[in-house]
């Protein structure tokens, strides 16, 4: 649990950034914004080809046996590129659940498919505004799921879904194949996230954990996904910091680069501060995954990641002036992604309350 990246991790960071830069296409991403139900195929092919789907899968199941640190670094590169598919984070959530739950048969059945990119994962915990409802309305009985989950990221095209439901005795965490569920595409401001309302009507599903074990596993999965998302947010925020910096050096007003005006200059310095604080929290959180410190560290990373990406999106656009709000220029790709990532895995209010409860023992 070192807080300094080793050579292998640095290589993953550099390589993932390199390959995404090489294959980036703003036009493709802009087109996706106006197409409900489409994601960025080329990006996802890259992810599979690069083995990102296999990163956290144990070697005996055809994976690379790596963990949150490595996945975080990939997510950071994806965030910088406003990656056009939502499967990486929930895919990791499903993977971690399968690896941890101790159901050898399910692990053996699904993990190789996930590693190979044949099965894409979605995670359906939330109902209404509850990120992890105490007693979910979605029910599980006799091996079958009933109920619905609104606007699940990646839900429209994933093959597997990890569902938080109510069982006979308390909550259960189950895994189901989405072929057996009804999906309705949700038209959103960030359409490549493939949000879908999922309806289960007797959908076959298998139990990963029950009762208290289910709750702690679900929390762990959620916290880990939040840390991956925080890395993605840092990547996006850092990209915006650099875009703003470069524009401030190039663009002239009143006869000098706008970067020479303190309002622009100091705003960019503040962006830098938010990015570095969030990055430091991400590195720490990934390093302490699996320890008692993790939940608090995950909340710290998530809160600062969201603040950094939101603020950088606001300020980078502002620094650009008129050009910053055009469709073609594309800064709104980050602005939209900042919003979708701020909501996926639970908003600021949720994580503030969770953190304070962990720190003070006082529930909201």
């Amino acid at each position, binding site marked *: 649990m070192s807080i300094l990246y080793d050579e292998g991790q640095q290589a993953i960071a550099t390589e993932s950034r390199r390959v995404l830069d090489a294959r980036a296409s703003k036009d493709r991403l802009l087109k996706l*914004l*106006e197409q409900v139900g489409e994601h960025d195929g080329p990006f996802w092919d890259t992810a599979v080809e690069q083995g990102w789907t296999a990163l956290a899968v144990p070697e005996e199941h055809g994976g690379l046996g790596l963990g949150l640190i490595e996945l975080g670094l990939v997510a950071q590169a994806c965030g910088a590129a406003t990656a056009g598919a939502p499967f990486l984070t929930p895919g990791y959530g499903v993977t971690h659940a399968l690896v941890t739950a101790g159901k050898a048969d399910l692990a053996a059945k699904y993990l190789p498919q996930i590693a190979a990119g044949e099965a894409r994962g979605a995670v359906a915990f*939330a109902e*209404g*505004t*509850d*990120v992890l409802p*105490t007693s979910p309305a979605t029910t599980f009985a006799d091996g079958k799921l009933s109920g619905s989950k*609104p*606007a*699940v990221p990646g839900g429209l095209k994933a093959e597997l879904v990890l569902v938080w439901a109510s069982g006979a005795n308390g909550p259960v965490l189950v895994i189901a194949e989405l072929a057996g569920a009804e999906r309705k595409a*949700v*038209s*959103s*401001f*960030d359409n490549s*996230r493939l*949000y879908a309302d999922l309806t289960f009507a007797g959908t076959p599903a298998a139990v990963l954990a029950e009762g208290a074990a289910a709750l702690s596993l679900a929390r762990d999965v959620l916290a880990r996904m939040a840390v991956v998302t925080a890395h993605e947010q840092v990547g996006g925020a850092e990209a915006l910091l650099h875009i703003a910096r470069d524009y401030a050096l190039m*663009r002239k*007003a*009143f*006869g*000098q680069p706008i970067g*020479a*005006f303190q*309002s*622009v200059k100091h705003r960019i310095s503040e962006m830098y501060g938010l990015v570095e604080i969030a990055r430091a929290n991400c590195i720490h959180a990934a390093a302490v995954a699996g320890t008692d410190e993790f939940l608090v560290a995950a909340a710290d990373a998530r809160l600062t990641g969201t603040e950094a990406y*939101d603020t950088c999106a*606001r300020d980078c*656009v*502002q620094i650009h*002036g*008129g050009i*910053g*709000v*055009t*469709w*073609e220029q594309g*800064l*709104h790709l980050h*602005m*939209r992604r900042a*919003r*979708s990532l*701020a*909501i*996926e895995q*639970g*908003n*600021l*209010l*949720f994580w*503030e*309350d969770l953190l304070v409860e962990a720190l003070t023992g006082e529930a*909201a």
Partner: protein
Amino acid sequence: MSEIETYRAQARAWLESVAPKYARAARGKLNLSVEEDLALGRQYMAEKYDAGYAGINWKTEIGGQGLSNMHKIAFDAEEMQFGMPNVYFGISLGMPIPILIHYGQDRAWVKERVVKALRGEEIWCQLFSEPSGGSDLAALRTKAEPDGNGWRMTGQKIWTSWAQYCDYGVIVVRTDPTVEKHKGLTYFWVDMKAEGVEVRPIKLAGGDSHVNEVFFDAVRLEDSQRMGEVGGGFGVALHTLMIERYIATDSAGFGPHLDLFVDTARDLTINGKPALKDGRIRSAIARNHAMRAGLDSITKRAFAMMQAGMQPGPEGSLQKLVAVRSRQKLSEMALDLQGNQAFDFDPHAYVKEDWGTSWLNAPTGRIAGGSDEVLLNTIAEKVLGLPQDHRPDKGVPFNAIPA
């Protein structure tokens, strides 16, 4: 009941009488294209003119009703609640027409334009910003060169709202590149249908295209189209922006009313508890209410002073700066509060009634009509007497400034 109250009641009665045809509630169901909605808007403006509610506080001799600002405010307050299709005419009647009234040379022609603009038969746009200029009005490059007894204009403008539907525009151009940059500008009106004028819509981050690039290729201008002195364009432009400050105020920052935030929160829970019971939500409601109430009081006072023949204070310049900036964050919060439900998004939803479009279009509001930074500088320099920023181009002839 005061005279104003009586007037307000009459206005409301008339608005209700035409609402079934024009109000947003009615139009919403029809899924009209922008062009269809505009056509309906022109009909509404004509009926409004015939009913005597157009140009309420303008002099009768140029086609107005000759009533007070208070009458105008009363009508606008009522009209706003119906969501009539008048958005296309806001700028036209807000800035260009008042400027035309003030500076236009041929008074008969001016009156004809005013009436047609009030009736929605003609629309005027305002051509200020340029690609290279950004927030620096004095850096304009579009030029008009003497051509016989008139001028020939060439160049490019940008961020021109509704230009694709406009008949005329007011424009600031450089007529003398050899003097210090803000001194070489002149103000004209231009026929948007004239030869050499090309309008190209710009698609914005939110997906719609009501702003445009406008190209001028050797467009002929008669000297009678000039408004103000040759070289006096900067002053006229500032006058236009002054008007804008008082016309374009909305303490909601042109986004949803705070009541919508309360309604949104009322139906939601945070970690199982009612959102309205949560201190974070209460703080957001309270602070935004206090801020907006302050801006509204500033506006009320400004109009009361105008009414009393006094010059309102400069605090009016705070409106857009403060209101739009806070609208942006409030809209983000309203979306976040809804959790996954916030993902359900309609890009065509009305920005004053929808958190999604309000959030997505807020940045345009913080930039259009003077960016936050320009407004802060203006307050510092014009109101508080602080020094200008360093300007390497100061005092340098325009054609000697490195591009």
